[in-house]
């Protein structure tokens, strides 16, 4: 119960930080996505059976606040969650490497779906401009914030969800 409560509080703090601070810190036209970073780190450290329900709830909350489509956010968040579950078994001894992989490919997936969604909605956009002005700066910012967010989430959830120990 404490795990779910702490996760919800952490997620809400991540959303508030994103809206209040990180969305205003723009590099070209890209911004860091602390919510995605938190979700990736949290997914790597959670050990609960029904955590995916939290991911769906998180996605619905963000889509209610954001102008982003619900389906897009749910796809991105659940993909990151499932990838984290897979990485836990494959690279469980190097969670930081898993975190970098998740953030890198997660950011590409998220932005790719954003571009696709806007294209479907009929918005005229330049793929090259999206790539150079938004995607690459966002990836850079996310990679820069990967280590601090991972360290913070690891410290918070170490006691709540202890990591596996080598037998």
């Amino acid at each position, binding site marked *: 119960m404490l795990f779910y409560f702490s996760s919800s509080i952490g997620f809400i703090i991540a959303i508030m930080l994103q809206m209040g601070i990180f969305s205003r810190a723009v590099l070209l036209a890209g911004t860091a996505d602390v919510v995605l970073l938190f979700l990736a780190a949290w997914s790597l450290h959670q050990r609960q059976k029904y955590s995916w329900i939290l991911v769906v709830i998180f996605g619905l909350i963000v889509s209610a606040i954001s*102008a*982003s489509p619900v389906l897009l956010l749910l796809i991105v968040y659940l993909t990151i969650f499932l990838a984290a579950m897979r990485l836990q078994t494959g690279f469980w001894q190097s969670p930081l490497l898993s975190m970098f992989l998740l953030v890198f490919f997660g950011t590409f997936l998220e932005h790719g779906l954003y571009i696709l969604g806007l294209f479907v909605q009929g918005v005229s956009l330049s793929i090259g401009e999206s790539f150079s002005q938004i995607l690459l700066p966002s990836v850079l910012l996310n990679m820069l914030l990967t280590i601090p967010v991972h360290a913070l989430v690891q410290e918070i959830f170490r006691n709540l969800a202890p990591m596996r120990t080598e037998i």
Partner: protein
Amino acid sequence: MRNLFTSGNIRNFIILLVVAGILLLAVSGYLTPIFSLTLSPLISTQSWLSQRYLAIRDFFTSPRDMASLRERNAQLENEVSQLQSQIVELQENLSQAQILYTLLDFARTNPQHEYTAATVIGREISPYYQYIIIDKGSNQGIMHGMPVVTQQGLVGRVDAVIANASRVQLISDAESVVNVHLQNAKVEGQIVGSITGEITLEMIPQDAEVQIGDVLLTSGLGGNYPPNIFVGQVLSMQSQQNRLFQSGSVQSIVDFSSLSAVLIITNFEAVDITPLVP
């Protein structure tokens, strides 16, 4: 009768006379050079002695003074930091008050509308959408579609509302289209946002003469915005022979990156013409 002129009396009288003479000379100033010459080394010696004494005394007593000075210094530094934080707080209040005064001034000069002031509390999570979050919602009478302005000009319109907060779509958003007219050229057109926040001017007829710096105002067409709200200025125009319309880039009058307070026009009802669109 004893003899007054004894050798002892005469000696005493001479001594008295010499002393009186010396005193008389001293009082009258004739002995000043002699005094100076005599006292000068004494004063120098006294000064040297005093300085050495003070130096030695300071040497032995300075640790105690240093401690008290450090304590005093820490106290003063604490006071300075408190005063600095007060200055920062007052400057923030002053800045906020100036913004509110400017908004109030704008509301007074445009009495045809009713306004509700709101503070910007956040921005859209995704960098592909240009939205802001404000701290007024349906409890304060805010409704979907209400135009949002600042003292400078048009900001956007309310896109989603909850009890105590609203989401505002900026005119720089990729899905935003605003009908405008050029004040000087008397030409109608549209401004369209983009994913990077740049605004373009479109649907300008090829024969229209648009100058750089021309002012853009809302036209009111479409029913989404009231007419004659300042939007921005034309930065550049591109005209190609094989295209039906000219296009150009627009410099918005509002700096969206530093928005901190806005006004919502509450007595304007947007017209939804979606059913009429074929």
